[in-house]
């Protein structure tokens, strides 16, 4: 019994981590290019909404996920137009996009489905990978997951490779560290930053779609519930390295999974409100440690204007 609970917890930890990890990786791309990813929550929300609506219409996972990603990218593109092109304050615009997306998705939901709420959609069943899932202990944890988790496994190292081993990544990091230097070497600072933000929007969009389609299996008001912020914190804690940020995202996943488990065990006499707080308490502890230790990209948050 005890072992089964632990195995189940580990499996759920991975599954629950996936959206936060995807957002964290997305935040890395945006912030490495020098733009605060304050709008990550908003990208998740719009993507979650769009993907669920498309899912109801088409019953096709790939199409709905693709549309969700596109929605995240579109909002990120608008955000980047205001911040990177027009030079508006990145923090204010990010917060603004969160509020607009929260209001927009909630209103549309009520407009079309009234008080009944959006119907539940079909679950995405886990796929056990032959042989690998039979490995004791870690097999069930890592290789008995929905296909979206496997996609995430592939995306994390790929994101790292793009950022640290490709010329695109080098240019991206350069415009985040020292935009005027990149400019004198013929790198188009604006274009690189817009790309960074939009790639961030894509990852957050995927995260939102995974959350809605694979975990909640519906859209509920404020479905992201702060996961965009957790992703932001994970990216910061991981020093804007997709690998380390994913590790930090996993810790948040563990906290959330623990919270879900604890709710089920009614024997434990802790108020459910306190249990719900667990992931956020972990986040606060994280922020305390982040403090001075991380050197953020030198150009982060600073608008670059050509002379």
């Amino acid at each position, binding site marked *: 019994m005890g072992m089964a609970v632990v195995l189940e917890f580990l499996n759920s930890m991975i599954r629950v981590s996936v959206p936060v990890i995807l957002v964290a990786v997305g935040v890395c791309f945006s912030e490495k290019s020098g733009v605060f990813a304050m709008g990550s929550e908003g990208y998740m929300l719009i993507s979650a909404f769009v993907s669920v609506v498309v899912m109801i219409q088409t019953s096709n996972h790939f199409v709905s996920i693709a549309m969700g990603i596109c929605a995240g990218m579109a909002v990120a593109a608008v955000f980047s137009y205001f911040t990177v092109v027009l030079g508006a304050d990145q923090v204010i615009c990010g917060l603004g996009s969160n509020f607009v997306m929260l209001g927009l998705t909630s209103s549309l939901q009520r407009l079309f489905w009234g008080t009944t709420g959006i119907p539940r959609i079909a679950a995405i069943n886990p796929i056990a990978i032959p042989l690998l899932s039979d490995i004791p202990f870690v097999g069930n944890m890592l290789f008995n997951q929905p296909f979206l988790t496997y996609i995430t496994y592939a995306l994390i190292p790929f994101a790292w490779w793009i950022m640290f081993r490709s*010329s695109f990544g080098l240019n991206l990091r*350069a415009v985040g*560290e*020292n935009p005027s*230097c990149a400019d004198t*070497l*013929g790198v188009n600072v604006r274009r690189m930053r817009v790309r960074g933000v939009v790639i961030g929007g894509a990852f957050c969009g995927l995260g939102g779609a995974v959350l809605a389609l694979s975990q909640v299996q519906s859209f509920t008001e404020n479905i992201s519930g702060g996961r965009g912020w957790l992703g932001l914190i994970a990216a910061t804690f991981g020093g804007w390295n997709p690998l380390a940020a994913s590790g930090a995202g996993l810790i948040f996943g563990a906290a959330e999974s623990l919270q879900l488990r604890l709710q089920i065990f009614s024997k434990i006499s802790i108020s459910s409100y306190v249990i719900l707080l667990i992931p956020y308490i972990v986040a606060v502890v994280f922020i305390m440690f982040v403090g001075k230790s991380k050197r953020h990209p030198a150009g982060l948050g600073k608008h670059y204007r050509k002379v």
Partner: protein
Amino acid sequence: MGKQKEILLEMRNITKRFANVTANDDVSLTVYKGEIHALLGENGAGKSTLMNILYGLMKRDAGRVLFKGREISLHSPAQAIEAGIGMIHQHFQLVDKFTVLENIILGLREGRHIELPLERAEKKIAALCESYGLDIKIRALVENLPVGEQQKVEIVKALYRDSEILIMDEPTAVLTPQEVRKLFVTLNRLREEGKSIIFISHKLPEVLEISDRISIMRDGRMVDTIDNTPDLNSRQLATHMVGREIKLQVEKKPCCPGEVVLSLDHTFADAAGESCGIKDISFELRRGEILGIAGVDGNGQEDLSEMIMGLRKLTKGKICILGEDVSNSSTKKIRGMSIGYIPADRLHAALVLDFTLKLNLALNHPDKPPYGNRFLMNFKNISRIAKEKLKQFNVAAPDCAELARNLSGGNQQKVVLAREVGEKTDLIIAVYPTRGLDIDATRFVFDTLLKERDGGAAILYISTELEEILTLSDRIGVLYEGVLMDVFPAENAEVEKIGLLMAGERV
């Protein structure tokens, strides 16, 4: 020297106007292949504007640029790089947190490869370094390299892009004398290999030493281009640069030190931000002497001055002014003694740019007579004294109600001087007081400080310009990473020795 004189670059009739000034007025410049061409001129003469146009950072209003006989368009640095023009900015354009290798290949698109061509680049860089006699640590992080090394990275970066002409904006400003020697060796090597160099400077001896031809700019115009013949001297160049005969020599009476005014006893201060802090500095400064503090920028100059002025916490040791212990006293108290302080950053620390001149002149103690008292300001006195001071210090300003922002750098510095040394002072702390000033304004600062010295003030003169230190000082100290390496009388000073001390080597 380019014997066959093949023309590499021609800039013809370049004109560039800003809102109310013409930065370049019908300027033409011709550079031959394989020559070091000095571009000489005072601050604001239009050198940087011309070069920014050549590098595609600014758009010209009129004129043509021909490279190897073909007209080229220059709308962005990318086009300049493509054509074969490289620029090394005075403030290096390097990403501190990248390795040397990453910095060199940054921004390049080689074929269709998404992956960084690290190994290929490394081979190419090694080959380049060998053929030009350079030596760089390719895997090191740029932030860990000394300034001279960073400059080499910049040179290699330009060579890697097959630049045929290198624009170097005041390349010696940040170097120790030894590093300057090494740079000159490299430049000569580049010239031998057929590269052309545009060497921007306002330091006459350097220009005379390194260049083949010299173009002189003044007030946005190209005054002349002359061959650097052995009989050309600094005086002739200076006359060209300023437009009339000027004296370069400073007349200095012998030094007769009196009582101790300022003494530091094993002082320490913590590093703050980019600065390195102060480590165990002790010295005494007497009436009637100038102690010059030499050192490369960023080695504790501002820390030292701010620590004495009470702007930085003294963590250990003791500071006395006129026998009184002022360790960790408030700046207000220290200011209350007869001290003049010229901070390093004129625009941020010395003046309130959007205040009028008369208010700026009263800023040192607006709450004391004659400027006012604890509650009120005496505007009548403030105006009267301001007028006197502006006249006494030859400030070119319409009147004392003008905003400080509207003055030139030289005149702003005169306002600072007028405030800080306009009254009787026992101690003057001057940090980079001539930075960004033209020859005339520099002369004025020198004369003012020497007059104060002869009047019995003790002067701590902190500068990165070794020439100035040697000219003015009675004693010379050298700062390196917050440590006062040595203090010795100016007559025993050898440039070689100071240079080694500036690089942190004890001699």
